[in-house]
């Protein structure tokens, strides 16, 4: 069975991770960071009503956004690992199931999946909105994560597998002791990218009555009619979060490559 070759997984809408060698991106990162912080400080000081009020109202949502993001990415990593292994499985049935899952998820917009899983779950069990949102996000991102894991595992030289098998390890032990410990270094940076992409996509769960940053903003705006001011602050908050996260991930990535080179 021939599969489409995926050598590198790029998340198109992930925040750009600045690398030290890319001077343009690095300075853009600093300008964006200081710009966002300056506006987030200046506007509430200059015009407390509504900007300071918005800043007082929205932070509850930041916690919810992080909750959804962290739970979703954790579940997505588990699903992704299983999917990646499934896509590489020599068992045709498992391979087919995993591939089918990836194809289906990739073919349906995230927003539609969110609605679908939310209402489909609702027909059988009553779960809190937050749980439904996490399951839906993880279901979608698990497929993308599966491709990341698959690419990471495939990036390990087949000689490593052969050496392990020749010592007497079976395929499962080879994966656990030899392949995955090496693959995670390749996998971690794209997982970081997915984390940022997922964090931004959690804004979609605001339509499922989950009180994330965007939902809190909408609540404020619809009461005060300060739509422009509210969404300005919302955008700045998201920007600040993703800028900081992308920097953290790039530091982590740098440390990892350093470890590899020692």
């Amino acid at each position, binding site marked *: 069975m021939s599969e489409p070759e995926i050598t590198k997984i790029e998340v198109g809408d992930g925040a750009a991770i600045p690398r030290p060698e890319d001077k343009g991106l690095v300075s853009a990162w600093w300008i964006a960071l200081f710009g966002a912080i300056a506006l987030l400080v200046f506007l509430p000081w200059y015009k407390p009503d509504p900007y300071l009020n918005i800043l007082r109202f929205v932070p509850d949502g930041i916690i919810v956004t992080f909750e959804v993001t962290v739970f979703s990415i954790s579940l997505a990593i588990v699903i992704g690992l299983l999917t990646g292994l499934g896509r590489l499985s020599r068992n045709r049935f498992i391979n087919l199931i995993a591939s089918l899952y990836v194809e289906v998820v990739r073919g349906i917009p995230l927003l539609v999946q969110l609605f679908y899983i939310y209402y489909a779950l609702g027909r059988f069990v009553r779960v809190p909105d937050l749980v439904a949102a996490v399951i839906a996000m993880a279901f979608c991102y698990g497929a993308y994560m599966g491709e990341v894991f698959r690419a990471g595992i495939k990036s390990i030289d087949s000689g*490593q597998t*052969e050496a392990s098998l020749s010592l007497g390890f079976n395929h499962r032990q080879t994966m656990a*002791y030899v392949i995955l410990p090496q693959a995670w270094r390749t996998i971690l940076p794209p997982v970081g990218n997915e984390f940022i992409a997922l964090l931004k996509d959690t804004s979609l769960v605001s339509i499922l009555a989950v009180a994330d940053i965007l939902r809190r903003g909408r609540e404020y705006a619809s009461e005060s009619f300060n739509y422009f001011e509210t969404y300005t602050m919302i955008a700045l908050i998201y920007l600040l979060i993703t800028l900081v996260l992308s920097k953290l991930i790039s530091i982590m990535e740098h440390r990892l490559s350093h470890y590899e*080179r020692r």
Partner: protein
Amino acid sequence: MNAADPIIRLQHINKFFGAFKALSDVSLDIKSGEKVVVLGPSGSGKSTLLRTVNRLESIDSGTIIVDGHNLYDPGEDINRIRMEVGMVFQSFNLFRHKSVLENLTLAPIKLKKMDRDQAETLALALLDKVGMRDRATHFPIQLSGGQQQRVAIARALAMEPKIMLFDEPTSALDPEMINEVLEVMITLAREGMTMLVVTHEMGFAREVADKVVFMDAGAVVEVAKPMEFFTNPQNPRSQLFLRQILAPATR
């Protein structure tokens, strides 16, 4: 199993890569303690043959018996058989995320349930044997090719195998590192290890081999004692091969 029975017996092995016949009716017996060197031009199927002996390569027909086990019998536990058969690769294939010592202890600890102290004692003794004890805490990437290959040999020995397979162990090495690896292999041969070696090192074949197997186009063309093979090859293809590899030296 009778003591006189060969420890490795290949009978009528055929293997195809698509339409290409990689192995053609290959039969070969290797007795316990015997050192067999497989020679032949590239693409002659020597490495493929070697790799069938621990089932890293499938076969299309024939039987392979290793230490009394029928290798391609679905009822056999291939992993147990592989524990008895060490393998050394052209590209070393040390575990890049493990230190030299961990490369040696991983399999004994996980597969033989050896306790860590015992495994490390064994590993250090083996590293001593291949002259790498002082590099126990290094990572593979910090070692030269020759050093990596010596560690790779020690890693295979850590499972205390009955048979060692060598798949062109010096072909990826810079010339000045070839001897340090060959010396380790010669020591191993002197200690009585059963060895099946695919190599281009004629000096090694001459010095160590009990018999030389010459392959061409997937078939065993000639089996002879090294003295006879190098001085008086019988088959025209062996003669041509020896003329080609020895030509520059005699000029």
